[in-house]
């Protein structure tokens, strides 16, 4: 059985995970890193907007909102 990679968009509301890596090397990836989603940091998924997208995250003591498409680039490990 292949080991499934978990990305941030799969994480349920209220769960806390740890960022493992950000995929890609374009402006989106750079901005996610600049906003503090760096490897090793703990992220809590606070919730989702009523239509399921975007996500509300808590990282480095502040609240950040990113779309699912962006969250799918954030590979996470269980914290």
């Amino acid at each position, binding site marked *: 059985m292949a080991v499934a990679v978990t990305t941030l968009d799969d994480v349920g509301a209220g769960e806390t995970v740890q960022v493992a890596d950000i995929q890609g090397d374009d402006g989106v*990836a750079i901005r996610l890193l600049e906003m503090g989603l760096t490897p090793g940091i703990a992220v809590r998924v606070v919730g989702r907007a009523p*239509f399921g997208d*975007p996500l509300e995250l808590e990282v*480095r*003591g*502040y609240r*950040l909102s990113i*779309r699912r498409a962006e969250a799918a680039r954030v590979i996470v490990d269980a914290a």
Partner: protein
Amino acid sequence: MEQPSRGTDLERLTVALLGNPNTGKSTLFTALAGIPTRVGNYPGVTVEEKLGRLTHRGRAIDLIDLPGTYSLAPQGPDERVAVDVLRGGQAGVPRPDVVIVVADATNLQRNLFLATQATELGLPLVVALTLFDIGRRRGRSIDTCELSRRLGCPVIPVAAPLGEGLADLKDAMLAASEGGPPTPLALEPSRIADHRPAAARDAIRRYALIDRLLAGIIRDDAVRRLPEDRIDRLLTHRFWGTLSFAAVMLALFSSIFWLAAPLMDLISAGIDALSERLATALPPGAVRDLVVDGVLAGIGGVVVFVPQIALLFLFIAILEGCGYLARAAYLMDRLLVGVGLSGKSFIPLLSSFACAIPGIMAARTIENRRDRLLTILVAPLMSCSARLPVYLLLCGAFVPDVAVGISWLRLPAVVLAGMYALGVLVAAAVAWAVSRTIFRGPPQPFVMELPGWRWPQAAVVLERAREAVWSFLKNAGTLILAVSVVVWAVSTYPQSEPRIAADVAAERASLAARVTDAGLPEADREELAEELAALDTPAGLEAARRGAIQRGSILGRAGRFVEPLVRPLGWDWKLGCAAIASFPAREVVLGTLSVLYNLPPEEAEGTALERRLKAARWADTGKRVFTLPVALSIMVFFALCAQCASTLVVIGRETQSWLWPVVTFTYMTVLAWLGAFATYQFGTRLGW
């Protein structure tokens, strides 16, 4: 030029405020400099330039409020401008002598990202820790002395709304201008080989640096639960949050739709009173007509927008100040992203249902350039309040009052709702199509901070509204005035007395001939008799003369000229003429129709116009002009057309380019014509 004189007491000091969005940077700017001395755009880009002045200990200081920036590795025009100004590469802006990094004390890790980058600028630096009071209330204490030592530059805690720390900050600015730049904080080289681009590697190492910088400096006492935490849980709740969102948006919309109405009426009444006094004071003639009907009416047409703009920006500034604006965008994002817009487009588009002008101006809150432009392009498709009188008259007069399915659901109401829906659907389609063709590009990062809840600052809120109103009056107002004067002129000239007399005589003869036509229904003949009798009253004769002037003017002739173009829509030349005359503003169409039908323009709101339109017939076939398909085709045209010079002027001003108003006018006019054509042709075929 500034460089050699740095440190001389006589020289002005240039200080730049650099900071992340939502850090209380505007509040700090207002607290330091008060009302900005200059607000505008950096040349060639739609990035706001805000300058202010203050004096401290006899030293004059120019304060530059840089656009909110997350990083000095810029993405997007706003961040690029900030970096250019700091490097001294922005034309017309001197390189700052001192940089104040505005850092939110409640969100220190991410804010230090920019602060540590700023140590590499080679400019004297001061860090202002804003929202210090809020941090304190949350039980957070920061060892600012140690932080200052580690950063190599002064760190001043400030609570701008309370005025705490402002004097220290100003002292630090002056002191920093005497000293040199801090030693750049070096990032540790990566221990592992990394394939990432430099900016990404830099970001990871910079956060490692920040973790080291902050180690042992922040002490968070047992986090006390604050009222805003409860509010947050309520406002982001799936059900209650959505409900409160609807309530807030309803309040916003009602304020610009209904609250503004009495103020707008007051302005109109004031202009009317003024024009009446001027009309009696000035001798009759071309000058009086120009002053009263041209210039004064034009000024009224500009000032009338002020209440809506002021109210909307007050509202937006309050929402922004308390942190709700970002949450509104968060809640609505999914709905709008499907058609190529973003959550931040919601409030500008909602406001456009009252009026596209404040709506387009509200698009300033959208940082993403592409999303902002697309929002501006489709905002005029929302049915604004100026379309409502047109819909109401035509729905009331020409849509049969029959039930649709249920007895209380009447057809005129359904058609009215349909017009609003049409605008929304077409806007969605246009946004979808444009975002997938012309505006296609690499995916834009949507990373939006949801700032903490706080009280909006009255000074910032008022400044925002004042600035919006002022920039509208100054930048757009003059041009809107010029356009309305030109349209007034082409609808009034050329005039020739013999031609006016001949036109009135011809009207009289035509009425006299038709009033005895036994082939016409009784109601029509009554209307004709009334119209004929009116010609013998002074008011009726004056109205007929005005009609004659309009019919003989450049505009009237243009109406006849475009008749072949509007015939496929089921329109006669008078309708074509009224559509062209409504270029300054859609609501003018009813007034123009009144004049063309020999009624005083004030009759546009009464039933007289309705009766006269119902009696109007084609000269050649004798058939009625206004049938259901024609009424629908007019409504569809006005739902989709860009007949609003003020909107186009504001689009030009907001996008800093005359290309976009031209694009907007063209695409909307084409859509309006096609829509009206399809409606009329379908309606006629179906035998409505």
